[in-house]
């Protein structure tokens, strides 16, 4: 066996891709070739070290803000964990909620009566920590309840990119806008109750409620 071949077989052996016969031939070579034996030891160590390389924890907040510096003109907004959870939840507006919305009994708001409210999902630092899994479960349950109650008209997440067009005096809000829900409710108080019941608020995020003008 040539040493060139042996080195590649060592790689295959580490990946557990060697059949018994080839493994025996490799072992025979390693017993008689000190330099390949050294290389095998080095590669084995490297293989073990690879396994020790840590994966960073999913952090509930801020990790996605470490990224890029702000660019002028076009500012890329990286979502914090809270908004990420909100977005995962909001995607349901395009997914399973869409199926429910088109189901019989939930028609356009004009037919169903009531007022329309826009719930703007804004991010901020979460007060308590939770795993993505847990956030996802809580947020999706809330969205499903809204849909089941017939309160939800539509929902969508917004992309990370935002552009601002403004006069000199206005301030850019620090709050990330993660997405929105368009809901139906009898009045403002009822809309507020719905917003308050959201896990987004429980986690310290904010929801801005705006009434939509009647047609």
């Amino acid at each position, binding site marked *: 066996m040539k040493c060139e071949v042996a080195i590649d077989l060592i790689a295959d052996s580490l990946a557990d891709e060697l059949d018994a016969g080839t493994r025996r031939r490799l072992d025979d070579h390693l017993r008689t070739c000190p330099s390949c034996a050294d290389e095998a030891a080095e590669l084995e160590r490297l293989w073990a070290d690879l396994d020790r390389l840590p994966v960073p924890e999913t952090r509930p907040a801020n990790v996605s803000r470490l990224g890029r510096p702000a660019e002028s003109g076009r500012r890329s907004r990286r979502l914090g964990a809270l908004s990420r959870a909100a*977005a995962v939840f909001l995607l349901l507006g395009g997914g399973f909620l869409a199926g429910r919305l088109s189901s019989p009994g939930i028609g356009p708001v004009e037919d169903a009566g009531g007022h329309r409210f826009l719930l703007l999902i804004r991010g901020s630092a979460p007060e308590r920590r939770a795993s993505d899994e847990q956030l*996802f479960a809580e947020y999706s349950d809330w969205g499903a309840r809204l849909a089941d109650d017939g309160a939800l008209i539509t929902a969508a997440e917004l992309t990370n990119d935002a552009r601002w067009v403004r006069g000199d005096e206005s301030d850019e809000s620090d709050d990330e806008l993660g997405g929105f829900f368009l809901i139906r409710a009898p009045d403002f108080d009822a809309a507020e109750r719905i917003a308050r019941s959201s896990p987004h608020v429980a986690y310290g995020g904010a929801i801005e409620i705006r009434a939509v003008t009647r047609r």
Partner: protein
Amino acid sequence: MRGAANGDRHALARLFRRHHRTVHSLCYRLTGDAAATDDLVQEAFLRVFRYGAGFDGRARFSTWLYRLVRNLCIDHMRARQRDERRRRRLDTAAEPAVELPADEDERLELVRRALNDLTPERREVLVLSRYHDLRYREIAEILEISLDAVKARAHRGLRDLRRIIKELERQA
């Protein structure tokens, strides 16, 4: 997965719980970009939920998922390269390296840097093989390349890794 395609929220939650760790690890290992990992994971699940209906059951679900995540990470790395080229043109300071935990030993830092220095083609084979316990045959299916191409990349990837670590050690 059928359930997710049909829009069952419990299926979505289950899917998320079952695959979150794998997707998270894969996104980080493929890109080496700790700052972007959480966003990539989120985007991966958004795509799974959106395109779940496009999973037709011909491949195994895990193969489909790996392929989706891998394509996403490739896109991210290309965009990052474009950003870096633009930034260099703008002559601004280089982005600081992601900080490692204080107890990270030097050897692991070398290995991490070497892994990030591999070409994306070689790194992804190594990552799928080392961290996701996938057979060469499965990797070939995910990457839609031949078994021989997987072997060649695996061999060169490990050789490159050794060479880069030696070089880094010499520099140190």
